[in-house]
């Protein structure tokens, strides 16, 4: 079973390490990405999604560090590797070739002072994949056309600011795909784009995954993105996974009150716009240590136990895990 997993986060913790105190941001999460599947990671802003993603290819900011757990990467070529223990040099060799990433802000994620084609070509040159300049350039142009950019030879020389948001995200995807990686991490790839462009980018990612038998970790706070793209979803709240299930199961049978809140926050045509559903309250301060359930202050369903004991992640159905006292029938 575990041989089918391309990536396995085991009890992964990430913390902001200061001089005086350590602030946990990701609190021991388990996450599996089977080969060839698209896994979603959802949760509201600040819950630690990006930090989780950045710990995989170790591009965490200087103040954050993996403080526990392991990141198991399984490939035929190199067997089982714990990315968390990998030397920086070895890690960089995998980045761009085996593990690629697409970010939220396609404008600022590209270097404004470098032509987009050159930025894509850099992946080939840095890894020594294609030393011949002309061939490398041809490969970039071919990739640009694969991600749906018209007149790719012309666009090769474009500067980032000359392209629209959707085009820039296509460039980012081309950059990620050029070495045919095994895993694509997409951190809110469509949050900065408008809805029609969002649909195009999502179907592009889906198609590229299919055609290249690539796996993907898609991070979003948008349940709509999850339903169109993902096979399996993890719902994250305040640095922990609170529920995970296959997409259909999660949408049909959400168990955690937070997941239910997220699902009913999706507006439908015909809803009364004055009564949009929201989850009350804000994400609580991570600094405050609290022994009860992290969600209980915002929960409308809480029972006494929720204030005194953290619920454990428990399997309630096939592949369906929930962290909630209530749904365990307590």
């Amino acid at each position, binding site marked *: 079973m575990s041989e089918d997993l391309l990536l396995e986060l085991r009890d992964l913790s990430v913390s902001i390490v200061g001089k005086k105190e350590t602030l946990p941001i990701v609190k021991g999460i388990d996450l599996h990405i089977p080969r060839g599947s698209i896994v979603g990671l959802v949760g509201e802003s600040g819950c630690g999604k990006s930090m989780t993603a950045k710990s995989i290819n170790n591009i965490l900011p200087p103040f954050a560090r993996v403080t526990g757990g392991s990141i198991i990467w399984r490939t035929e070529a190199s067997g089982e590797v714990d990315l968390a223990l990998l030397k920086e040099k070895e890690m*960089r060799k995998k980045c761009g070739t085996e593990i690629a*990433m697409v*970010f*939220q802000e396609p404008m*600022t*994620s590209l270097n404004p002072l470098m032509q987009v084609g050159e930025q894509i070509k*850099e992946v080939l040159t840095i890894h020594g994949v294609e030393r011949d300049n002309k061939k490398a350039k041809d490969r970039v142009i071919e990739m640009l056309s694969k991600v749906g950019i018209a007149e790719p030879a012309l666009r090769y020389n474009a500067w980032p600011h000359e392209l629209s948001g959707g085009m820039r995200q296509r460039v980012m995807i081309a950059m990620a795909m050029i070495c045919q990686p095994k895993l694509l991490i997409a951190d809110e790839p469509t949050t900065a784009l408008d809805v029609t462009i969002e649909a195009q980018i999502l179907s592009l990612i889906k198609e590229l995954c299919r055609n290249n038998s690539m796996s993907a970790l898609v991070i979003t706070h948008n349940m709509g993105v999850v339903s169109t793209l993902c096979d399996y979803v993890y719902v994250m709240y305040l640095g922990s996974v609170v529920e995970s299930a296959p997409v259909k199961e999660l949408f049909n049978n959400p168990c955690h009150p937070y997941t239910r809140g997220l699902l009913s926050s999706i507006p439908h045509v015909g809803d009364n716009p004055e009564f949009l559903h929201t989850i009350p309250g804000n994400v609580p301060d991570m600094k405050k240590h609290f022994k009860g359930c992290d969600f209980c202050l915002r929960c409308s369903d809480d029972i006494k136990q929720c204030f005194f004991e953290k619920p454990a992640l428990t399997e309630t159905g096939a592949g369906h895990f929930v962290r909630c006292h209530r749904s365990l029938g307590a």
Partner: protein
Amino acid sequence: MPALLRRFLGVVFVLLGVMLLIFIMLRIIPGDPVSVLLNEHVNPATVEKMTESLGLNKPLPEQFFSYLLGALKGDLGKSYYMRKPVTALIMEAFPYTLLLTVLSAAFAWAFGIGTGIISAIYNNRLPDYIFRGLSLFGISVPVFIVALSLQYFIYFKLSLLPLTYNGSLQSMILPAIALGWNSAGSVARLTRSSLMGELEAPYIDTARAKGLTTRQAIVRHGLRNAMLPVITMMALQLSSMLSGAVITESIFSISGMGKLALTAVQTRDMPLLQGTVLFMAFVISMGNILADVINTILDPRLRV
């Protein structure tokens, strides 16, 4: 490039304004040049003759326009005091100032950019504390103190380099350090803060995610972005060094532009003062245009 043309047109207007302003100012401040040139106890007839020969009795607009016409032809009049054409005096003095400026800019920028980069990379660790302290020292200690301390330690205590300028390149080293000291400090601080800002930019994450090491990401992507504001600052420094080395040149007795301007003020030499101020204004404007041109070359967003 019409933008550049517009900038040059702007410079012409700036220079005209400077010319008019200095012309008026020199004529409303008390004390006239003739009484400085002649002894105070000469008879009024001599004063009148002198005034007439210098053209100071003509109406002001006429004086201004004849000066303007001359300036267009490269003739900035004749120095009252040194009895030589102003243009010739400037051309004599400028090479010294240019050499001083080039040397001190080289020192200031190499040192400032180098330590700024190290500071940014070792943010809040020992090298950063050292260089940040040095650069704070650099911007807060006045030029004359730096100059005198250098003379005291390097010449008087250690006898490593000459006290004042004597025509050799070695004797230009102390003046160059003294003049570049402040600039080095401000370049270091700006480089540090600018680079630290760029290191948080998402494109650095992108670079690392595609397999560059942090160092490669800084060198290939961060540095270029971080240098844009620094270059603007350096061009401004260059023109202010070129035009304002009065203190340094006096301390090290270098007969450059600063010293020329100082002499002009001390002797109420109107044509010479007008000439040097105009020339400095020209140099500063050119420095600003140079900064724009370089930034346009580096930053595609500024190209139209």
